[in-house]
């Protein structure tokens, strides 16, 4: 097969996994669309250093299993490849956001007004805390399928992490232009963000595990917790 005439760039651009090609001056020679978005969350130098650290000893390619997290991007492996001294590539493999075992159960979950769950949890939080809460939500969000009990537990834990924060900003919105594919259907993503001037991180592992159980992506930072919720109608 003569591959010279095939436009590989189009296929690599369309790949949902980030792909970056560095030249021998540590500069980026090419990056696909996903990698371009990733660059908003991680520096070029960090990715270059990662490439060099996991490069094969000789010409060729090497895939290494490695847990990486850059904001909402989570990866479970990377491949570094080079066939001459001039170019070296890095490809990162996305960690699946949804657990396939729990996917079948999603359709059976009750339709829920997420704003009610949020309001009930905020009321509960206010019973024990006097922090100032600023809420920015879309009250007209249609109902979505949600594990009501586990999601409430998750919200309680997340809010508890901000128990000593002075001002807590909570926002709930539908992400524009980002989707999840579930059962061959494009589903929207709802993003809940809780931000303050500081927070406790003692429950972070539990928050992560609870979120995973119900197919929610969680990102814990020093001052914020972000939840991305599959919005299944």
């Amino acid at each position, binding site marked *: 097969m003569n591959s010279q005439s095939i436009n590989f760039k189009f296929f690599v651009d369309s790949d949902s996994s980030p792909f970056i090609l560095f030249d021998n001056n540590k500069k980026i020679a090419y990056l696909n669309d996903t990698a371009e978005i990733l660059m908003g969350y991680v520096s070029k130098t960090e990715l270059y250093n990662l490439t060099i650290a996991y490069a094969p000893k000789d010409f060729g390619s090497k895939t290494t299993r490695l847990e990486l997290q850059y904001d909402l991007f989570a990866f479970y492996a990377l491949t570094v490849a080079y066939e001459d001294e001039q170019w070296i590539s890095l490809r990162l493999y996305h960690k699946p956001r949804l657990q396939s075992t729990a996917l079948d159960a999603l359709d059976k979950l009750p339709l829920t007004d997420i704003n009610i769950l949020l309001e009930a949890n905020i009321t509960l939080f206010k*019973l024990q805390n006097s922090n100032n809460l600023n809420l920015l939500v879309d009250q007209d969000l249609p109902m979505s399928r949600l594990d009501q009990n586990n999601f409430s537990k998750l919200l309680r834990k997340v809010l508890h992490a901000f128990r000593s924060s002075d001002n807590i900003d909570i926002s709930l919105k539908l992400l524009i232009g980002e989707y999840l594919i579930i059962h061959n259907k494009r589903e929207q993503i709802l993003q809940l963000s809780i931000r303050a001037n500081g927070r406790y991180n003692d429950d972070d592992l539990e928050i992560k595990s609870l979120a995973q159980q119900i197919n929610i992506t969680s990102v814990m930072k020093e001052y914020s917790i972000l939840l991305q919720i599959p919005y299944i109608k």
Partner: protein
Amino acid sequence: MIDNFQTKSIEIQNIIKSFQLTKSLFVSSILIGQRSTGKKSLIRHIFPNAIFADGSDQESIEQLLEEHDELVIFNYEKLTNATRLNFDNKRIIALANYISNEKSIDSVFAFIYHMPPLKDREEDIALLVNSFLIEAKKNLMIKDVISIEYKNLDISSNIESLKRSVYQQAFSKSCTDKDIEVILYHYLHKQMGGYSDYKKFLPLYEKPLIEAGLQKYGSQLKLSDILGINRNTLRKKIYELSIN
């Protein structure tokens, strides 16, 4: 038991608000608070048609969970094996007088509420006293106007002791000579049978007589005149009866 739950406590009003918001959802909640703080009345008020089951009977709870999507479990702390219960996709409201395993409660329940004891919700005491007084007057067929002495109310066992002390005051402030005689008759009939019983039971009459007199007239001198006894005799009685 008060049928219609009444409260002026902001804390309890917020608990009600949160329950009202989630009452149609399939979530598990627990309300923890001392005995007799009104937990059951509050839940009955919010979920009037719910089935109530006693946590002392684990087997019956397991059976009910198989048949119903909504269940109120009171005495949750008495369950012999709470971990065997499956609350998935059910509306569970548990009521507990105390919790022995905070971690297990935290992992099972989405909403964890704490019912404040009566001593922390003084605004509710007047509300409850008024309600119990109306009930007491109706049940005891008391026509007189009764004014309750708040300093003598007992809230050591929350609503239970409060109700008892309201009934006591309502009765004691409305009873007749005949009622007192009947009470004393039954008491003495039960207690009598020792040695020197006359001397032993006389303080039952003398102590309240002198205490009430001192409270009413303020001085021993005046009270001795009113009672028609010698001042020294009165002083001696006060000492013997350990009256302050």
